[in-house]
């Protein structure tokens, strides 16, 4: 028996990998997966790193796997999208050392720009096996087994935890880590690892991609056999003609719902893809209807429908293709409503509570008080207003500048899309200045490619790089501009001015706590033809404070009520949570409890009412 600890699902996943003897862990930060990488740090012999993007992380892990070393790339769903091109090759070559992809999904988009179901990408499109855990405890067991099976089948295995598994906290048993790991070795095998359109005489001249596709297709039978015996799928007997299928968190919600349902309905728990076909067929024997609860798309539902069609089984299959909500997270009430609707004779007690008759204001996210982004965003807001500019935004802390009150960025899509989007906006010839705002972690992720493209195509776009030297949004992970590795070793940070010089782009480095300097640089960039770069450079305030480093000299600021005319510029164009407007007095005030004395608002106020 190992030691029992109360830990996050992400810690359980990391521990599972370490117990399985993982030697290389690489990822790019993204909620809800971030802590999985961080929790692997500090184990002797295990290389753990933040890569500059998920594709790099995955490719690096594959390199390690080819040396018979166990490796784990870690990412959120957007990262898996980014990896798709590589995934559609490594599925054909297969791997050597166990390779387990962690692809964390965020149903409901709790901390994401979109919601999606990466089971479809990995299983349907890349034909690779997926485990869908129902709890932190099961996630740990699945990771361990996935490493073994990955080696046995020579295929990448994927664990797809959702936010409620990653961020759950539960009691997890920690077992010993392996004392010794097999030594790495490498033998070339060009028949497998050179993915190219080579003609293969032994296959009648067919090209290698087709033959490798055939290899992957043949693996499916082995996978199906393995899943048939998997401990992650089981049947719980019950009464009646309506059966329930719970996949991952869907199972968890059904178990939660059982206490509100009289009698026990037959239940099939599914944690694997491919599906355990024989188990499924034995489950539905005698049933008239099944309801499938899964996060988030009707994926298992559609796979079941195909199997029933092949087997000529006449059964009603209900789920997230319209019977249950087709978007968002599952929850207790949705599951209870679903059971009630599917089985009119089943007695379901849906918990009710009295309504609340009071207005509850929404609390939107904003930059921290003292954040340097607020300075450059304010300067940009003024410039955009003066020249009728348009701003394409990106992922990161600065995205809050697109919300009320500042409402600056007009578009935000995915990592790195700001510069190409802005380029497209700029080249249409609207005669309006176009800006891209991108943080430095996102810049190194792939935003740099957009900048190179703008440079090589002479596109008149103004790129603002918010260089706070860390991936702040996800909790201060280092990136290529930080100058330190995840393990804390010093490295050489990327020199952005030299990079810009080599691309032939004009650049200006500004201090975001100096709004006047920022504005001058932005105006100069607007007046200049061709691409230009503004590097707004200052370490993250929050991280610096935690480290006891000063990024500004704190000063006491106050509002001179006689000068304040209630114009609200300091609120609408600046949005500092320490400043509030008083309707009765038509004046603003600064809350001393919240203010950290960055002094930016002094320059924001055009009437000199803040000093």
């Amino acid at each position, binding site marked *: 028996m190992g030691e029992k600890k*109360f830990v996050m699902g992400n810690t359980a996943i990391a521990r599972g990998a370490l117990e399985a003897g993982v030697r290389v862990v690489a990822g790019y930060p993204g*909620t*809800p997966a971030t802590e999985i990488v961080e929790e692997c740090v500090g184990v002797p012999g295990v290389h753990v790193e933040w890569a500059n993007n998920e594709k790099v992380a995955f490719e690096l892990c594959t390199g390690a796997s080819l040396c018979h070393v166990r490796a784990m790339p870690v990412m959120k769903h957007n990262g898996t999208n980014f990896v798709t091109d590589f995934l559609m090759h490594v599925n054909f070559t297969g791997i050597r050392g166990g390779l387990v992809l962690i692809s964390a999904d965020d149903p409901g988009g*709790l*901390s994401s720009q979109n919601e999606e179901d990466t089971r479809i990408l990995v299983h349907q499109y890349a034909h690779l096996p997926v485990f869908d855990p129902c*709890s932190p405890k099961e996630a740990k067991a699945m990771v361990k087994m996935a490493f073994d099976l990955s080696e046995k089948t020579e295929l990448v295995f994927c664990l797809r935890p959702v936010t*409620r598994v990653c*961020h*759950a*906290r*539960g*009691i997890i048993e920690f077992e010993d880590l392996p004392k010794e790991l097999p030594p790495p070795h490498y033998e070339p095998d060009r028949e497998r690892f050179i993915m190219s359109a080579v003609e293969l005489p032994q296959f009648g001249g067919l090209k290698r991609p087709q033959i490798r596709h055939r290899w992957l297709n043949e693996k499916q039978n082995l996978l199906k056999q393995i899943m048939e015996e998997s401990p992650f799928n089981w049947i719980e007997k019950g009464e009646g003609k309506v059966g329930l299928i719970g996949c991952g968190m869907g199972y*968890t*919600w059904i*178990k*939660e719902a059982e206490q509100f349902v009289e009698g026990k309905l037959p239940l099939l728990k599914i944690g694997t893809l491919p599906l355990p076909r024989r188990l499924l067929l034995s489950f539905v024997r005698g049933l008239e209807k099944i309801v499938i609860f899964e996060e988030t798309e009707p994926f298992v539902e559609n796979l079941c429908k195909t199997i029933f069609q092949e087997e000529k089984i006449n059964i009603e299959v209900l789920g997230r293709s319209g019977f249950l909500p087709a978007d968002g997270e599952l*929850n*207790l*009430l949705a599951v209870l409503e679903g059971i009630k609707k599917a089985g009119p004779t089943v007695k379901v007690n849906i*918990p*009710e*509570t*009295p*309504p*609340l*008759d*009071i*207005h*509850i*204001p*929404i*609390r*939107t*996210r*904003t*930059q*921290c008080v003292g954040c340097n982004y607020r300075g450059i965003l304010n300067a940009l807001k003024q410039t955009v207003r003066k020249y009728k500019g348009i701003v394409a935004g990106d992922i990161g*802390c600065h995205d*809050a500048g697109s*919300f*009320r*009150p500042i409402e600056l960025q007009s578009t935000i899509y995915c990592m790195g899309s700001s510069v190409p989007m802005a380029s497209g906006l700029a080249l249409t010839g609207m005669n309006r200045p176009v800006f891209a705002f991108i943080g430095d972690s996102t810049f190194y992720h792939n935003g740099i490619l957009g900048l190179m493209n703008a440079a090589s195509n002479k596109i008149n776009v103004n790129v603002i790089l918010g260089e706070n030297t860390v991936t702040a*949004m*996800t909790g201060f992970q280092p990136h290529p501009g930080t100058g330190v590795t995840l393990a804390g070793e010093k490295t050489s940070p990327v020199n952005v001015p030299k990079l810009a010089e080599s691309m032939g782009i004009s650049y200006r480095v500004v201090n975001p706590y100096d709004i006047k300097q920022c504005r001058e640089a932005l105006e100069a960039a607007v007046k200049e033809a061709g691409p230009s770069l503004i590097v707004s450079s200052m370490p993250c305030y*929050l991280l610096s404070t935690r480290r006891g480093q000063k990024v500004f000299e704190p000063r006491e600021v106050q509002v001179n009520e006689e000068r304040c005319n209630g114009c*609200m510029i300091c*609120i*609408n164009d600046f*949005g500092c*949570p320490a*400043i*509030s*407007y*008083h*309707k009765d007095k038509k004046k603003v005030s600064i809350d001393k*409890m919240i203010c950290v004395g960055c002094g930016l608002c002094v320059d924001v106020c055009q009437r000199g009412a803040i000093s």
Partner: protein
Amino acid sequence: MKMDIIISGVGGQGNIFASIVISQYAMSKNFNVLGAETIGAAQRGGSVVSHIRISDGEIYSPIISRGQADLLIGMECVEMLRHLRLLNPQGTYLLNSLRIPTVLNNMGLDEYPDLQEILEAARKYCPNGYVIEASVLAKKLGNIQMTNVVMLGALARIMPFFEYERIKEIVKENSPARFQEANLQGFAEGYKLIS
């Protein structure tokens, strides 16, 4: 026996520390514990809610559903209201009467309900509530960050489930050395807040 607890507040209030103390306490009493928290962008002043589920039996969902919580700890007024319907109206709430305006409140574009209105809505929903000025006390003791330990102290006073001495030990174990003494003082003063 089961005890489902919600702790709601604003990023930076020490919500997660409180949730870890309560969870470790329950574990030390050999209960099963499962929980969840919303994190991520929380340190930027967003809403933070922790779910803690304690039971002597199996626990499935890490999330507490409508009307199922036995205890709601509101570290901020509006954040308590936001999650009030998770509380069983026969349960208990402990509210810190702190009001942290939202960005839109600051802009004058959205109204933050006044304290009386909030207290009335809460009382109407659930008669068994305690309202304390935990942040005021924490600030008086030297650091508003101690709001969480003050509230844990008050909790030990109102819920017999939480044994004072044992919770105190766990607060101590989880406090960084330089905050240990202050945290224990906050805990003790929080206990005295409720007569």
